[in-house]
């Protein structure tokens, strides 16, 4: 009876590469987002509302709007991204997909990078696309609009990447909104300053190469460091949850 042989352990034979796994994460986030289109519209509507209310609330004069337009658009874009951040991990946390994500046998920071890219394409990118229209509305000239779009194109991914750290850190909390803003806004300020500074320089006819290079440096820094920080924060939040 004792001589019964124990079955051999069969270890998992195959596995998926990091890139394929990232694609899987990205595809799922996109699919979920497009099943819930009204959520996609929220940041856009917010962006449009803030920009249209400014001329009504402050002054509809061309000189004022031309001066303040780029700043208004940048602030509106920043707040709009900030508002959408809580959704980045919240639903996944609630339904258990986040646990499964952490348990995937690929480096977590890459999977989070894929999620953040999806988040940017769903919130930041539409804002950039909408910017020319709103730019005309606040009487920016063609050159300024082009530069503004470029700064937003480089800047909004930075906002998503830094935001991912905050969203991951505040995941375990019941009302994360205020704390998330307090944590993240100080880190957004340099991006905002250089973003609007670039447009101001362009309006004065100065060269903007250096400004754009600095924004690009922010992006590279966020791209390489933020996913690591967010992955670590996510593990802490899950460990307490």
């Amino acid at each position, binding site marked *: *009876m*004792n001589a*019964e042989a*124990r*079955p*051999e*352990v*069969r*270890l*998992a*034979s*195959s*596995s*998926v590469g990091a890139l*394929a*796994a990232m*694609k*899987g*994460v990205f*595809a*799922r986030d996109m*699919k*979920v987002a497009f*099943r*819930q289109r009204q959520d996609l519209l929220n940041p856009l509507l917010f962006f449009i509302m803030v920009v249209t209310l400014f001329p009504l609330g402050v002054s509809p004069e061309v000189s004022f709007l031309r001066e303040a337009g780029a700043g208004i658009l940048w602030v509106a874009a920043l707040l709009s991204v900030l508002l959408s951040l809580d959704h980045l991990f919240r*639903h996944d946390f*609630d*339904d*258990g*997909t986040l*646990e*499964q*994500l*952490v*348990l*995937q*046998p*690929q480096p977590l920071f890459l*999977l989070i990078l894929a999620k953040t890219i999806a988040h940017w394409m769903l919130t930041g990118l539409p804002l950039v696309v909408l910017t020319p229209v709103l730019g005309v509305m606040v009487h920016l000239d063609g050159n300024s609009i082009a530069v503004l779009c470029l700064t937003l194109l480089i800047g909004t991914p930075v906002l998503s990447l830094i935001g991912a750290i905050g969203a991951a850190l505040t995941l375990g909390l019941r009302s994360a909104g205020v704390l998330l803003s307090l944590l993240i806004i100080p880190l957004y300020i340099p991006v905002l300053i250089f973003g609007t500074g670039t447009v101001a320089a362009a309006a004065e006819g100065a060269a903007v190469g250096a400004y754009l290079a600095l924004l690009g440096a922010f992006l590279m820094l966020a791209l390489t460091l933020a996913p690591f920080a967010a992955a670590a924060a996510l*593990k*802490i939040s*899950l*460990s*307490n949850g």
Partner: protein
Amino acid sequence: MRFTHRPDYGALMSEPLLQAVNLQCERDKRILFRELSFSILPGTVTRVEGPNGSGKTTLLRILAGLNDAWTGELKWRGSPVDSQREEFLRNMLYLGHRPGIKPLLTPLENLRALMAGRRQVSDAALRQALQGTGLAGFENVPCRNLSAGQQRRVALARLLIADEPLWLLDEVFTAIDADGVQALEALLLQRAAEGGAVLVTTHHDLDLPGMHKLTLGAGGLSDEC
């Protein structure tokens, strides 16, 4: 099916898949368990027992690597889990209270997304797994329109196509009907017979032939493994 595995014999003969040495976990200033040591051998089904709040879920989360608030040692096939995290994750399947199912996606899309990070599975195999859990005809219905039991079955479909030898299953019998329970029990035994190891917590009256028990309790701790 015959199940004649004996823990005492097996401990001599085969290397444990997972080994816990002196685990201690504190939660809200209360010690859930201390000096908890056990080995999970290939070919076994182990039920983690204990009253509510005794730390069953916490133990499974610690083993899976989702909870960091513990001290002690965890070994995967003889070496520390920390030193071979990816290898461990490749061979471990964890199903928690929250099934990891997106309500907006269909069962097929959910299963495809869950498998996308683990290994390549054809759509035909995914459909077959869903049919195997009794979800034939529901493949393309969004999961939020399914019942709680059906949603759990979507998560359980993973077990039918899993190639991970170690399963950590937390309350998998919740919301599953009698037929489903029977099929699931057979599945657990089959995985054990194939050389896998299953750790399961449940309030369902689970009694499988050759099943091991790991009892957690307030204060008194008995480890029959």
